[in-house]
């Protein structure tokens, strides 16, 4: 290996280490932070409720595309009844959690990073420390928890809307029999598949929220620094979500 790739690898390892240590700091303060639930509820609103429009819109169109794709593929084999199975399994296991996490990183993750970064650059975090108040507890933990709690709720919303969108195309537009559509879906989808989606959304919730608060808290306190940190949040959390998705999909397949 040459010097440049050594430095890149070292930087990546250092970042993983620092983020893990930061996660430790965050987890250690969750107990005390729960004493002020109002702060957490506000962050669930900021990260969750404010992402609803984009999640609903995206879920609808993803579901409709799955309906079209499913119909296109299955009609070649004369098994259009399976459109619902593809839409349900695809959304529950992969598309729901992954796309929600990617959209969340772009909508709420960037907002978390830039908000904390700007608080840092305007000395608000230092002011807290000067008031003997721990900014990790008051600023970081409520935002982390808000993101972590919002993610599964948004994933559930995305998945339900996508299922609705798929049946809208499959049943209402393409004319697949409604009874066959839903009975095939019911037969094919097991609790194990639902759990896969739930576990993924929880893991993605931790990953994206952690990256967002870490990047904000450790951003350079300059306009350029906050901008770079916001970009890093999108890039790192998106790649992380895709990698984790692969690992979790493989893990669930082997434990089936």
């Amino acid at each position: 290996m040459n010097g440049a790739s050594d430095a890149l690898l070292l930087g990546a390892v250092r970042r993983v280490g620092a983020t893990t240590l930061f996660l430790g700091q965050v987890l250690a303060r969750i107990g005390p932070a729960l004493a002020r639930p109002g702060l957490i509820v506000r962050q669930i609103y900021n990260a969750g409720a404010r992402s609803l429009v984009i999640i609903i819109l995206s879920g609808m169109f993803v579901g409709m595309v799955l309906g079209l794709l499913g119909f296109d593929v299955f009609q070649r084999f004369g098994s259009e009844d399976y459109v619902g199975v593809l839409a349900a399994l695809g959304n529950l296991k992969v598309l729901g959690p992954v796309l929600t996490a990617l959209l969340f990183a772009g909508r709420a993750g960037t907002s978390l990073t830039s908000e904390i970064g700007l608080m840092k650059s305007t000395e608000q975090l230092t002011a807290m420390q000067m008031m003997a108040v721990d900014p990790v507890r008051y600023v970081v933990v409520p935002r982390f928890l808000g993101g972590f709690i919002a993610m599964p709720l948004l994933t559930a919303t995305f998945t339900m809307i996508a299922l609705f969108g798929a049946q809208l195309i499959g049943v209402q537009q393409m004319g697949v029999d409604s009874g066959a559509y839903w009975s095939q879906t019911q037969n094919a989808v097991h609790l194990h598949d639902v759990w896969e989606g739930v576990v993924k959304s929880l893991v993605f919730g931790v990953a994206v929220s952690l990256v967002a608060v870490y990047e904000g808290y450790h951003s350079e306190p300059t306009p350029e620094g906050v901008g770079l940190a916001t970009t890093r949040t999108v890039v790192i959390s998106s790649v992380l979500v895709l990698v984790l998705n692969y690992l979790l999909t493989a893990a669930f397949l082997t434990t089936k």
Partner: protein
Amino acid sequence: MRYAIGGRAIFDGLDVTARRGRITAFMGPSGTGKTTLLRLITGQVYAERGSVRVFGAEVATLSLKELFAMRRRMGMLFQNGALLTDLDVYENVAFPLRAHTDLPESLVRHLVLTKLHSVGLRGAARLMPAELSGGMARRVALARAIVMDPDILIYDEPFVGLDPISMGVICRLIKQMNEALGITSIVVSHDVHELATIAHDSYLLSEGRVVASGTPDELNHSEIPAVRQFMGGLADGPVPFHFPASDYRSELLDSDEALP
């Protein structure tokens, strides 16, 4: 005390004292490390060598808990106010009370409104920080800094960018806090004339050390060239106005030469 960043000494052999119950001013040209001095006093950074003592305790040896306990006895006014932008004026001032005490809401309200009234902004209690002018934000920050009744108040450039009325109000408030409540005040600024009206003791810092100290009046009548230059606002003198550069004439005339 010595403090350096990346091998470059900000302070080397600095020896200063802010006495209890007095207003001590630290003056000096921009870039002298005045704000860094406040960061050293408040334990945000530590001296490389030497000692920084607050309330008789060595700051560098304090645990995080002890450091926070020390800071609870301090109030700090930041240059830009550093108000929490997601809270309104009232909640900003109430913030330290809510974080450190279990006072009933009626008492919190009483304390917050009293402090806001003392800075003339009781009527602005429900405004958000974005709706305040720079001077108002700094007055709210002052109300927040005194809400816990600190023993020491630290002001970082309290006069920068203020109109004459706000400047006069802040000056008067600093003096009042000191006289009425006996608060020890540390003021960092380069506004010589404002400081002269309120400070009991002054230090003039330049290039990491004390150039002169005494009462503002003594500094005004000092014969030391650097002090005369600073107090009189003169461009020529021992404190260089220009950042080190190559020869002016040759750089202008030699157009092919790249910028250093």
